[in-house]
């Protein structure tokens, strides 16, 4: 909304002829600049989405061989919700926990890089991004090795009694959430860093000068000013984490499966397209609703 407020005053300028033709030309330029992206989105996002919506309403009695009939079979949605309610809830629970953990790890990390790293700043940023040099799949497979039953992590945790002697980490919810947290940590850290880095240190000094202890200055100045990064980071973590299926697949068991696993198997294994499409749509809508509620509550439009 702040954008609208900034643009606002330019509106009621005297509408003289040259000004109007100039504004028309600048509008044409804007459309030209938008065109390639818009076209891309139309072909590869809008049309497939319509197709997906249609698929989700096909008659489920059809098959790939016999073909599907578009019968506006809304029952598909109720069916998948009834059958896969647990996986839905688990997706949001795991993604939520992973987001909170990533925030708890990422905020201090971003803060340290932004304010305390000095000449090591660039190196530390590279280290944050370094995991992207290998594939998502490989990194998750590496966690399989790390959390393996006879690996050193489990051994050490058993030694200090954090894991019971007959316990394990792999194939548990802990492993899945750990994997999610790890894989999406950079998405949390980088926007937070970008936000924190912009904060003028003199504002913190001003807060100290105005009777704020270090903690109060953080709570009243640094934290509010880093909200844009915090909101961006949590969204960039939560949304892909909620739809992820690799971590549950490789680090969990079917008992830890998330909605992504169900969609994957109904599209590619069971070939039940109407059901898969209905699941995808439900996930999309659920995330949209959650994100809108969250952004409204965080009030990012209030921020500079």
């Amino acid at each position, binding site marked *: 909304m702040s954008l609208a407020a900034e643009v606002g005053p330019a509106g009621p300028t005297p509408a003289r002829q040259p000004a109007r033709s100039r504004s028309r030309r600048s509008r044409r330029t804007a459309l030209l600049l938008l065109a390639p992206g818009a076209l891309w989105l139309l072909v590869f996002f809008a049309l497939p989405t319509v197709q997906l919506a249609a698929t989700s309403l096909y008659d489920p009695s059809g098959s790939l061989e016999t073909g599907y009939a578009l019968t506006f079979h809304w029952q598909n949605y109720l069916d998948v919700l009834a059958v896969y309610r647990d996986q839905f809830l688990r997706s949001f629970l795991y993604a939520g926990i992973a987001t909170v953990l990533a925030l708890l790890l990422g905020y201090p990390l971003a803060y340290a890089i932004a304010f305390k790293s000095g000449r090591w700043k660039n190196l530390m940023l590279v280290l944050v991004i370094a995991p992207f040099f290998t594939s998502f799949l490989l990194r998750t497979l590496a966690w399989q090795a790390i959390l393996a039953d006879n690996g050193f992590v489990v051994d050490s945790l058993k030694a200090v009694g954090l894991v019971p002697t007959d316990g394990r980490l792999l194939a548990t919810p802990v492993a899945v959430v750990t994997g999610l947290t790890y894989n999406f940590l950079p998405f949390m850290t980088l926007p937070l860093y970008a936000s924190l880095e912009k904060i*003028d240190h*003199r*504002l913190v*000094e*001003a*807060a*100290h*000068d*105005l*009777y*704020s*202890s270090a903690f*109060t200055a953080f709570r*009243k*100045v640094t934290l*509010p*000013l880093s909200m844009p990064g915090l909101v961006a980071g949590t969204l960039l973590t939560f949304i892909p984490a909620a739809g992820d299926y690799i971590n549950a697949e490789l680090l969990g068991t079917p008992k830890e499966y998330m909605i992504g696993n169900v969609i994957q198997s109904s599209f590619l294994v069971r070939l039940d397209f109407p059901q898969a499409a209905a699941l995808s749509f439900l996930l999309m809508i659920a995330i949209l609703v959650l994100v809108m509620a969250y952004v409204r509550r965080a009030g990012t439009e*209030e*921020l*500079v």
Partner: protein
Amino acid sequence: MRGSSGQPAAGAELRLSGVTKRFGEFTAVDNLDLTVPQGSFFALLGPSGCGKTTTLRMVAGLEEPTEGLVLLGEQDITRLRPYKRPVNTVFQSYALFPHLNIAENVAFGLRRRGIKDVREQVAQMLALVELDGYDKRKPASLSGGQQQRVALARALINRPQVLLLDEPLGALDLKLRRQMQLELKRIQTEVGITFVHVTHDQEEAMTMADTIAVMNAGRVEQLGPPAQLYDRPATTFVANFLGQSNLVAAEVTGRSGDELLVEVHSRVLAVPLDRAAVHAGAVWVGVRPEKISLVQAGTAGGAAVGRHNVLPGGIVSDVSFVGVSTEYLVRMPWGQELTVFAQNTGDRSPFAAGDRVELQWGAAHTFLLDAEQDSRAGVQDVATGEPAPAGVGG
């Protein structure tokens, strides 16, 4: 508010005792002793890098002295955390909180001290800085001058014992700066709080401050009321940094009553004894450009009342008309160019380049400085407003 009349509770003076601040090898502030009387408007004046801002930050608690003590009345605040000091700062960049509106910015200090009902005080403070009705706006929507006043209100509302101002007018244009100088002075008189004002602008310091400490290279060169500093500079740095001065090399030759006699290129000039920083040997004879009258060659001393100093043999080399006055450069027989400011009273026609003139001024306006000092120390480069590098010329 602590006092009923709006006066701060304790009449505490601010004292710096032997304060030194080193950053690695660099000594920013060097064994500084300063006393700022309670309720005064005190200016720390000096070129950039002279240590004035560091001094201010040590008083604010944002920097810790390497050595020495900072005292507020009887209380030693040297190592006290900034948020525990009864001292507030108006920052150079204002440092307003961009996520809070004007009212919340101003109320920030009160809220941190647990004061719940701040509305009335905020309204009073915004009225004082003439920003009524701006309380719901965000800092970014205000002009520089308005932001400056918000920063002032945000600091003043806490009724600090000392208010620190770090180049508060530096970002404003000239006209607004003049206006804010008067405004600041008015507010200071109204609230009676000690103001310590850091600036590199000598005019600003002279306009506002009761007392000026001229700082150079981490030390105080001279301290006193503006008129005294201007009239009787103690060092070449002060003579050049505060206004302009003509400094001519001379030799003390004798004494006559309460005047010293000095010889300048075989002319004898008189200097009151109490205006001489040194009493023997090689010296700089100084006189302010506006104290000098230019007269046609051969007519000096005619209408003079009292004891006058005369330097003959000058040739006008440059004339620049600046409206209220005309600035002349006069080349003396020994090659040096002296500056003369003549008020455009209209009583006589101006001189032109090439005219032969004599320089004449009251002996009481002459001052003597140590010839050991660099005669160009503190000279400001007209183009940038920054002091010229030390050691240029001689």
